[in-house]
């Protein structure tokens, strides 16, 4: 049934793996605010380059995770894809064609699931009204096979695991648990029979034991409805669990993208490696931690934007390889280092995948802090000043 639904829509014919959504050289800037007087004098606030040249291909049927720290531009990229964010440059293509002026038909095909279901749902609307709203906005009163609205809403709810659906029709969001609310949000996206779901931190506001269920649901929907899913997350563990490919963003740009196993187990960009090093797990505190706060998009460094924090540069390895000048002065985009795995790193470019991996491991060992041994509260253990800013 779902297959026929999909086939009835023009996008359904794309083969799996074909690029369904392409983002080319996307730029989004935010103008900082100035005070009234300064504004009258014609002064402008600082320009924040939130998304600064993102290139991305989303393939039909895949789960793509976009990961990074807060402020890296991952959510802004997602919002730009959704048409929720005015862009300053670049193109977005859907099924090979640039987006038309009238976005409405496209927006039906691309649906967003937001982070906090409690904020997303109108507390004064019943679940039925919430789900049906999307249909009404798009002027859909019948399904592709002539189904009435009620049936479409019921189908979306039951796809989202809220069964029997009619039991939920007249309930209000506050009567549901957090997990159920997120299912309502997902049902609201599904009712329009989309091709792509963009989920911005879909489980980070949910209780830990409930998260798995929502992710399971997304995986199941991908199979059943032939969906393409883009998940924006800060959680690399989540990417490991569900994503086919991972894109890592830093300071408004994708610095590495490739198959999940490659990017998360054999990362070619030092920033990916740094992010992986801070994933909490037993003994994780003994691995290097980048210093400082997330970088400032109003002051994007010249050259490789990661170079001021990059352990390859800081340890002098870059100088040894003769690429230090490039790191500090030459901006660079993604390059395919290994089949399917792209990185924006001078070291990887110069050395190639294997040698780059070895070099990164060497650098990491050099900057690793002294271990804090477990159970070391015995008095014989002594250390210098607690220095929270080790190398990096």
């Amino acid at each position: 049934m779902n297959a026929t639904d999909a086939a009835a829509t023009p996008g359904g014919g794309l083969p799996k793996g074909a690029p369904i959504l392409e983002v080319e050289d996307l730029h989004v800037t935010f103008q900082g605010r100035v005070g009234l007087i300064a504004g009258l004098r014609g002064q402008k606030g600082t320009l924040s380059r939130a998304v600064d040249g993102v290139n991305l291909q989303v393939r039909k049927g895949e789960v793509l995770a976009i990961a990074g720290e807060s402020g890296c531009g991952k959510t802004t990229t997602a919002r730009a894809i959704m048409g929720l964010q005015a862009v300053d440059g670049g193109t977005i293509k859907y099924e090979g064609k640039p987006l038309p002026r009238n976005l409405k038909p496209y927006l039906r095909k691309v649906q967003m699931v937001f982070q906090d279901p409690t904020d997303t749902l109108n507390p004064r609307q019943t679940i039925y009204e919430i789900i049906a709203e999307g249909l009404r906005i798009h002027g859909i009163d019948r399904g592709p096979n002539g189904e009435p609205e009620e049936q479409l809403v019921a189908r979306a709810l039951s796809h989202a695991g809220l069964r029997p659906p009619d039991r939920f029709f007249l309930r209000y969001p506050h009567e549901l648990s957090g997990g159920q609310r997120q299912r309502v949000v997902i049902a609201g996206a599904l009712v329009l029979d989309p091709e792509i779901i963009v989920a911005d931190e879909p489980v980070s506001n949910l209780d830990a034991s409930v998260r798995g269920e929502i992710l399971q649901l997304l995986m199941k929907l991908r199979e059943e409805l032939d969906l393409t899913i883009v998940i924006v997350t800060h959680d690399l563990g989540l990417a490991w669990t569900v994503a086919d490919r991972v894109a890592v963003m830093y300071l408004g740009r994708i610095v590495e993208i490739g198959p999940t196993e490659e990017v998360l187990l054999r990362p070619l960009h030092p920033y990916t490696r740094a992010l992986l090093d801070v994933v909490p797990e037993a003994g994780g505190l003994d691995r290097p931690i980048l210093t400082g706060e997330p970088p400032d998009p109003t002051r994007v460094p010249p050259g490789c934007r990661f170079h001021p924090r990059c352990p390859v540069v800081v340890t002098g390895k870059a100088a040894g390889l003769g690429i230090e000048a490039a790191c500090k002065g030459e901006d660079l985009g993604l390059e395919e280092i290994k089949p399917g795995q792209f990185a924006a790193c001078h070291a990887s470019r110069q050395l190639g995948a294997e040698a780059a991996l070895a070099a990164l491991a060497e650098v990491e060992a050099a900057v690793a802090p002294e271990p804090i041994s477990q159970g070391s509260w015995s008095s014989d253990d002594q250390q210098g000043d607690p220095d929270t800013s080790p190398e990096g």
Partner: protein
Amino acid sequence: MTDVLRVEDLFITYQTSAGGVPAVRGVDLAVKKGEVLGLAGESGCGKSTIAGAILRLLPATTEVKGTITLDGENILGMKPGRLRAVRWTGASIIFQGAMHALNPVQRVGDQIAEAIVVHQQAGEKEAQIRVGSLLEQVGLPTRRMQDYPHELSGGQKQRVMIAMALACSPSLVIADEPTTALDVMVQAQVLRLMKELQRDLGLSMIFITHDLSVLVETSDRLAIMYAGKIVEEGPAEAVFHEPKHPYTSALAAAFPEIGDMRFRGNPTGLGGDPPDPQEIPSGCPFHPRCPVAFADCERTVPGLYSAGEDRRAACLLMEDAKSGVETRG
């Protein structure tokens, strides 16, 4: 080693217009000197309520039964004067959301000094010197004491909160979700700082969070809570890597280790949601969501049974459950 804190048979019931809400239903805990106890569980399981009870920060109408002994003194029986003296010198707390816990119109140095002066550990002048050294200890330059909270970043504010908690050299520091609002990189920095301070100062700590992976990184022992009770307790790594209670397994699965192929393409979670404290299921409170529940679970309330060396779990599948031998910590 001696116990800095002992919690015995603790019951806490909040009073609301809709009746009593039993948030904690019979908890025993002990923190040894120099030990970090991780307290994990989902929202509403009662973990923050326990922190509130230890510092007696709960609303006055809340019913608290049982004993909480800090350095040999029963906190629940203390008179207000004594309580004020013990708070911050005996036990201090690092709250979640440093953004909101600091006074926005007071310099951070003065906020830290306040506790020192109030507890008459030093005069104004000496307090300033102590503040400077505290800030250095948490990795902030001394001059930062002149700053207002808005001049600091999230991670720096959390460092100030940590300095504040250490100001009066308490025997016990409670950290309630200290890094939840922080970014991953900053979280790692703050966690490392706390671990280093803990080691260098020999701190005894209770570390509260829902993030099991953070706890296994920072804690010596773990106690997992569900519906107001401890369901599993033991050495941190053992509990995380080889959970005995089905709830712990489910919670641990929410924090997969990257590289572990069991999780790849296979998100696992529990059906249902954590129970409403006002409608706790009969028998084992976890049974409606439990993947391995059997008929007895609906009827029998499990005690904490021995679950291997130095470990306990509240599950009827434990060997000792059959003979009914409970163990107490």
